């Protein structure tokens, strides 16, 4: 009872205090309005039921949480509110956009279980034919990234072509390496130091300059030529756990404590029959690439990359419920057996959703990711996904086996604008444990095929 009285008293003070704080002329006009309204209705007494009274008491109890939620939502996200009569907070249009909405900014966030969250900011300029994006992510001076991207679209003889230029610089000290092969502990290429750990942390700093020329000869077909120059410096992680040099014999890890410099060129093709504007539609996706990397300066490595990505988007029940079997394969082939490829250049598995992309959980010359996904619409712009992914790695194609394959099953929600994902929530469970991911605002390097971190 004391607790109840306290709550009622506090609520009463808040409500009456709020009323008292109002301009007295507003209170007077409310009374006048009430009298006028009663006159229009022609009543001398309103209907009141006892249920109403109980509801109002309960509602008074919800006053504080309701006002709190309303207040918090007032100042959240892209739609910063306007206080209509005072306007002391800048309007969303002015806050996020200037120059006829051509210049704007938006925040980004990436939360992944097991890793520190990243918060970022992106500034952009766009018009009909070109866009410029400057984006940065930051956690601390050991975990940050900055990217500048320029894109230009043009039409020649009714065919669309595109040039994009990218420069990025990033550093992460929470990368991990587990060794080569499907079962690193038994693979003779891995020399573990005898300290019981099966993975090591490392620090990586990258600078990259990239140009991509894209061409769309038909509605469904895209061709790309990509060229980049990249430096990659691997060093000691400051995370606190065992470094790769602590866990592995440094002599068998090419690329450690070294700066790799490479010039890479590749051509890729993508044939996608899905409807462009729809987040879920049936069709087929077939893509492939082949690329050549040559070390520059002190880096004498030379290798080929190649791969394919094929998926079928099969409608079930309706056209916007689809089952997607997908196969992604990446292969790396050393062209000079005398010069080993840096371990950090080995295929990463961005498409595997069981673990963060910063964790190189399994790698080898060949990385194969079969997956099966079911996707369906939840509402306008939101889709639901359930998926199962596998990673199978091996030295060569004939050795691909499900033994020791990493696996994950999970559920995700994706926010779309057309076929681009602008936000994602995912939870997965598998051989690598539980993974949770929440991302918003096109985090850096999202879905970049040639971003081999």
């Amino acid at each position, binding site marked *: *009872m004391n607790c109840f009285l306290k709550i009622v008293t506090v609520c009463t003070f808040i409500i009456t205090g709020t009323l008292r704080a109002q301009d007295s002329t*507003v209170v007077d*006009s409310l009374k*006048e*309005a009430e009298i*006028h*309204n009663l*006159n*229009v*209705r*022609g*009543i*001398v*007494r*309103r*209907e*009141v*039921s*006892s*249920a*109403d*009274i109980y*509801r*109002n008491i*309960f*509602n008074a109890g*919800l006053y504080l*949480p*309701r006002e709190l*939620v*309303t207040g918090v*939502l*007032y100042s959240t*996200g*892209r*739609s*910063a*509110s*306007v206080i*209509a*009569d005072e306007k002391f907070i800048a*309007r*969303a*249009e002015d806050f996020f956009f200037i120059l006829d909405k051509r210049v704007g900014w938006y925040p980004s966030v990436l939360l992944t279980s097991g890793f520190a969250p990243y918060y970022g900011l992106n500034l952009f300029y766009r018009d009909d034919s070109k866009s410029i994006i400057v984006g940065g992510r930051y956690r601390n001076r050991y975990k940050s990234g900055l990217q500048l991207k320029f894109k230009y679209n043009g039409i020649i003889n009714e065919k669309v072509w595109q040039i994009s230029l990218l420069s990025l610089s990033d550093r992460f000290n929470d990368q991990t390496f587990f060794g080569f092969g499907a079962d690193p502990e038994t693979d003779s290429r891995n020399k573990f130091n005898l300290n019981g750990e099966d993975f090591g942390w490392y620090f990586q700093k990258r600078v990259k300059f990239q140009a991509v020329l894209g061409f769309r000869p038909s509605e469904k077909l895209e061709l790309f030529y990509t060229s980049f120059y990249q430096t990659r410096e691997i060093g000691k992680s400051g995370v606190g756990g065992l470094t790769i040099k602590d866990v592995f014999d440094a002599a068998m890890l090419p690329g450690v404590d070294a700066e790799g410099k490479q010039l890479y060129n590749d051509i890729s093709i993508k044939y996608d029959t899905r409807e462009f*504007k729809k987040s879920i539609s049936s069709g087929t996706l077939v893509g492939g690439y082949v690329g050549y990397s040559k070390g520059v300066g002190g880096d004498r490595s030379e290798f080929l990359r190649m791969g394919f990505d094929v998926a079928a988007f099969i409608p079930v*029940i*309706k056209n*916007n*419920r689809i089952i997607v079997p997908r196969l992604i394969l990446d292969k790396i082939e050393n062209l000079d057996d005398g010069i080993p490829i840096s371990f950090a250049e080995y295929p990463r598995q961005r498409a595997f959703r069981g673990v963060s992309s910063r964790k190189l959980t399994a790698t080898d010359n060949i990385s194969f990711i079969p997956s099966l996904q*079911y996707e*369906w*619409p*939840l*509402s*306008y*712009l*939101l889709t*639901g996904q*359930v998926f199962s992914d596998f990673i199978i790695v091996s030295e060569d194609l004939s050795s691909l086996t499900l033994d020791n394959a990493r696996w994950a099953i999970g559920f995700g*929600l994706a926010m779309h604008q057309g076929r681009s994902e602008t936000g994602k929530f995912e939870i997965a469970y598998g051989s690598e444990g539980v993974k949770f991911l929440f991302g918003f605002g096109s985090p850096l390097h999202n879905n970049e095929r040639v971003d081999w971190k």
Partner: protein
Amino acid sequence: MKINQHIKIAVLVMTSLTISSCAQSIKFADSVPITESHDNISIDVPQSNDFNMSDYAFEVLVKRPAANAMDVSRVKEAEDVNSMDHVPASSWYEPRLGYRQISPEELLRGPQLVGPPVAPLTVTRAKSGGGNPGFIIKDSRGKSYLMKFDPPEFPAIETTTALIANRLFWGFGYNVPEDYLYFFKPEELSVKKNATINREDVDKVLSEVAPPVDGYYRSTASYFIQGKILGPLYQVGIRKDDKNDTIKHENRRVLRALKVFGTFTNHSDMRIDNSLDVYIGEEGKGYVKHYLLDFGEAFGGHGAEHQRLWDGFNHLFSTKVTFKNIATFGLVVDDWENLKYTKWDAIGAFESEVFDPANWKETWPYEPIRISRREDDYWAAKILSALTEEQLKLLIKEAQYPEEGAAEYMLETLMERKRKTTKYFFSRVSPIEYANTDLGLITLSDKGIEVFGEDESREGYTISFYDGNGDKIGQKNLVGSSNGKILIPISNDVLNDSNGYLILKIRVDNKNADDPPPAQFHFITAGYKVPKLVGVVH
């Protein structure tokens, strides 16, 4: 401890009893029903309202639903309603359909005062705001019009709809601009010198819209509302600088009624920027008048333009639907997912078969629609029931559907939607109206039977009598009516027990369906030979 516990229980019980005794029934004054609100008292020009799409989207899709989820208070009765449960004339509404005879020709004329543009036309500026291309012109009389067009993928879909829906909403009682279907050739347009738009821009606009037929472009010419434009009318709250705006907008029946009219016309694009407040009159001597506009995306227009078959079936975002789809993994197929576009571009996917008035949804949640009560819906459904086939036929004819069979399909579809809509909203109340009172006899009429004919599912009526304190003083059960007329004898005992104020509650009893709440008729018996009707509640 035990004594404290007993005291607590006793206090709780006493509180409950006290609360229960605070309950009271509505009581009407012995007065003449208000038929005019007189909300045109002179005021200074109020401030303009802003509209920002991002803010609005966040407000209606996120903030308000979150706040509403924590509000358990009962929705208030509408406050712009008089004692007879009608809405008086005001700056918001003018009683038309359902209140007086409106010929098809008058409905077609609708808001006309100035009439359509008179050539030659001069383009004066570009259209600002809104997603569709257009421009502003002045005609030979110097009158300004906004010219709007059809999308190229669905020729005629908006220009037909704009005319028909504009006149329908005028007929329902709203203030609407003068919209006209207007044909012109591009060579009839000249561009004003020093205009903010040049000939190239005009040609660009015309290249982005439905192509001309026989050299003529179809357009909707919307005459600029005269007065100082104050921006959209907000769906909640009041204008603090307008003394005449005394009722929170969400509690206005005229706005809540948009649920029924929106259901019928599929005016799913009901957003505040499709409404307008205008200051009418000399500065300092005028008042604010409230308009609805932009009806071109009613019927199938909004869904066709945005390629959304779910238009009219779902809000743009709903947590309820989202969670349902998460839980069912998309394995449950909603009815609208089986819809297909009709063979007529001018109609899109507009239909009446899958249409369910109980589940119609506007795209952007609109608060007055959300909290509309049964009696608000019933009032609007009565107005809708007054719309005749002849009136619709003429509007459709004047809209000039270009494709063969389209006009007939539209008439059939609108009539069926009207039937479904009125039937559904009538079924949620006891649709009983007052007829007259004689010595010892009160005559009521069953509006449902009047509109739809005898209904086999009607078992009869339960009638109860109460005094002014809400205490029951009698009951009667009637089986059937005579052509919809319900004759209720009033005994002297009931009159005496009423102590001067009699409440008659009558509920329709339905077979195989939930019985709706009763309609109430309040009479003052003291001082009158024949009980005087002073109030109606549905």
